[in-house]
């Protein structure tokens, strides 16, 4: 009942109670008056009396016949106790009272006597006593079968109707009191229903009447109703947040606790490290990424409370912004001696909404910019290399062309050699431009293959011939090992040749004079393996993974001394990939390198 009513709005509960009790009292009142009216209007006291007398008579007859009148006195007493009976008695055939409502009269002779025949049912007679008073009496014969036992004498009170009214009056208070009581109970129930709300209303009215919007008293309620319990929780919360006294702050705080979990999740999903520091520079929050960035575990609980300076290697300049704490600062923190060890970009910003306090909280974001730094470095290197690569042939072309133009060359052989030089340099320039074009296509992802069927043996021999002059120049032993029979394959001839020339050209370039380069081709069931092995300067193991990155050039001085774009291997790898194959590198510093292209043959 309690639960169901609590779901109903108060107004409806009040209305339903009001209607229910009103209805119950109206019904009670109506029923009472109806019964009263019915009794008064339709009442026949004599008939009822005679009916009652007959009832008792038959009981007495049965008693006299079966029990020799043992219970007769009790039955007569019962009859005598009726309101409208003045007295009652049983007279035997001798005219003696065998029972009487006044026990003293038992055994005495009746003053009046009627000889009643069995056929008589009831006789009404008026008895007038010697003192002049009169009384109505009913006489009933007591006959069982043919045996007459005597008769029953019942004296009736004077006014039967008055007796009736009297009985009714006994009930009247109840008829009036019951509806009043119902209404009273109803009033109490209604009052208890509205009590909680009235109490809350009273407190709210007090709040609205108060002068200060921030200063008011709220009391918890003692009622056990859900509304009261809800109110108590509200009050508890309001009292608990006294420190943040404005309603705005209270609202934002309760909203904040809801949002905190969401922000926490967002922050821990960020790839950038995020930390918060308090006024002293101690960490109050650090997300997972920060833990990972600083080469610790994603668990950042142990970072809390530590000064932020500790997190970065000693020497990281975190005091740059000292005295300018309100300004955001950005700086880079190297994680080691070289760029490859990692570089972090740290930015520090004051926490918004904190401008007025002198010592500020800060939010720190930490991003790993190692790749970006490396790419920048490579690009710079490329610009340098490209400038050199473009300028050298251009300078030669210009010098030779001008020499030819200015001087009258008499020797036709020399003239021809100059022209050949110009041609060779122009070719070198064109090749470099081609390389650049390939790279820009690689960058744009639009490097595509135009496969044609080629005779692999002829192609490989051609490639060998193309690079042989470079080998000869440095007296490098150049071995070309081809299997006896090679198939025709579908490749992009130009790119395939360029890729292999790159590998062989590198081998020649980075192998000292009198070294050895082996160009070896093996054929498996459905796989072609082309390897270029040299006895060159090799590549240090930490540089091998970066080898095929665009613009990458080794930090080795022996490589730096030689011109190069840092694009050749990137291109070769891309060509191998486009042909469904891959480029593998094995190298040992100062011993030599082996580059192997493995690709399927259809």
């Amino acid at each position: 009942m309690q639960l169901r009513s609590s779901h109903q709005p108060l107004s409806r509960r009040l209305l339903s109670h009001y209607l229910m009790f009103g209805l119950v009292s109206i019904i009670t009142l109506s029923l009472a008056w109806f019964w009263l009216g019915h009794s008064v209007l339709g009442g026949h006291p004599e008939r009822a009396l005679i009916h009652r007398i007959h009832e008792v008579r038959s009981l007495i007859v049965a008693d006299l016949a079966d029990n020799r009148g043992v219970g007769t006195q009790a039955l007569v007493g019962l009859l005598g106790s009726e309101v409208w009976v003045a007295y009652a008695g049983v007279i035997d055939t001798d005219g003696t009272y065998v029972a009487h409502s006044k026990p003293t009269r038992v055994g005495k002779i009746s003053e009046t006597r009627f000889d009643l025949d069995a056929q008589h049912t009831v006789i009404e007679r008026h008895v007038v006593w010697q003192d002049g008073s009169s009384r109505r009496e009913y006489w009933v014969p007591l006959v069982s079968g043919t045996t007459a036992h005597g008769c029953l004498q019942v004296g009736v009170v004077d006014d039967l109707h008055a007796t009736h009214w009297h009985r009714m009056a006994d009930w009247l208070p109840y008829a009036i009191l019951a509806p009043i009581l119902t209404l009273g109970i109803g009033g109490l129930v209604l009052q208890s229903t509205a009590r909680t709300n009235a109490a809350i209303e009273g407190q709210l009215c007090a709040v609205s009447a108060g002068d200060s919007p921030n200063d008011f008293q709220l009391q918890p309620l003692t009622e056990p109703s859900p509304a009261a319990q809800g109110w108590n929780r509200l009050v508890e919360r309001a009292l608990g947040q006294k420190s943040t006294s404005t309603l705005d702050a209270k609202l934002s705080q309760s909203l904040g606790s809801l949002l905190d979990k969401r922000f926490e999740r967002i922050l821990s999903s960020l790839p950038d490290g995020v930390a918060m520091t308090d006024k002293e520079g101690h960490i109050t929050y650090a997300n997972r990424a920060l833990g990972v960035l600083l080469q610790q575990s994603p668990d950042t609980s142990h970072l809390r409370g530590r000064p932020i300076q500790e997190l970065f290697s000693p020497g990281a300049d975190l005091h740059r912004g000292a005295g300018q704490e309100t300004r955001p600062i950005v700086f880079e923190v190297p994680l080691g001696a070289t760029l490859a060890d990692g570089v972090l970009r740290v930015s520090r910003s004051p926490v918004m909404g904190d401008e007025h306090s002198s010592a500020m909280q800060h939010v720190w974001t930490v991003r790993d910019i190692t790749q970006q730094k490396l790419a920048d470095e490579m690009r710079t290197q490329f610009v340098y290399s490209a400038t050199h690569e473009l300028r050298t042939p251009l300078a030669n072309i210009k010098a030779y062309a001008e020499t030819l133009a200015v001087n009258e060359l008499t020797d036709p052989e020399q003239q021809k050699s100059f022209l050949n030089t110009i041609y060779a340099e122009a070719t070198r320039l064109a090749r470099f431009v081609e390389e650049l074009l390939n790279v820009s296509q690689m960058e744009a992802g639009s490097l595509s293959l135009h496969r044609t069927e080629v005779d692999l043996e002829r192609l490989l021999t051609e490639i060998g011939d193309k690079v042989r002059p470079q080998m000869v120049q440095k007296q490098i032993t150049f071995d070309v090992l081809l299997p006896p029979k090679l198939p025709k394959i579908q490749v992009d001839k130009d790119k395939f040749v360029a890729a292999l020339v790159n590998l062989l050209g590198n081998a020649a370039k980075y192998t000292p004079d009198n070294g050895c380069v082996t160009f070896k081709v093996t054929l498996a069931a459905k796989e072609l393996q082309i390897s270029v092995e040299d006895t060159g300067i090799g590549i240090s193991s930490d540089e091998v993974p970066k080898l095929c990155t665009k613009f990458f050039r080794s930090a080795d001085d022996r490589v730096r001394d030689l011109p190069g774009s840092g694009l050749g291997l990137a291109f070769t790898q891309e060509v191998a990939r486009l042909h469904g194959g891959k480029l593998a590198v094995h190298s040992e510093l100062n011993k030599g390198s082996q580059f192997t292209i493995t690709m399927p043959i259809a």
Partner: protein
Amino acid sequence: MSTPSTTSAPSILVAEDNRVMSDVMRFNLQNAGYQVTVARNGTEAWELLQSTKFDVLVTDYQMPGLTGEEVCTALRIHYPDWHLPVIFLSARGLELNVDRMKSELGIETLLHKPFSPRELVEAVAKCLEKSAQLV
């Protein structure tokens, strides 16, 4: 150290690792009447400088072994009294500190590649004129 005779043509050392470039420089300088020696790299150039008295040094900046700058530095340290005019060739651009090189290394002229052979010949002639005035 042998001293070229005053009557003979001025002798010029060209330090350049690119054979094609050194060939054309040799041709043009010889054509202008100079005696030309070519060094393939910085180390070779430094060895030649220690043994022979040249009138002008034409050197590339970027070379295997010693760079042009290193050759000049060595020259100024080991032979502080030898005011050998130096013509610098470079494929590099702005990143070279020309003023510093001129004051510290006594570099007379800096030629950026690609340069004109006539410019080189003129620069050499100018250097020789200056040396003649000093003497």
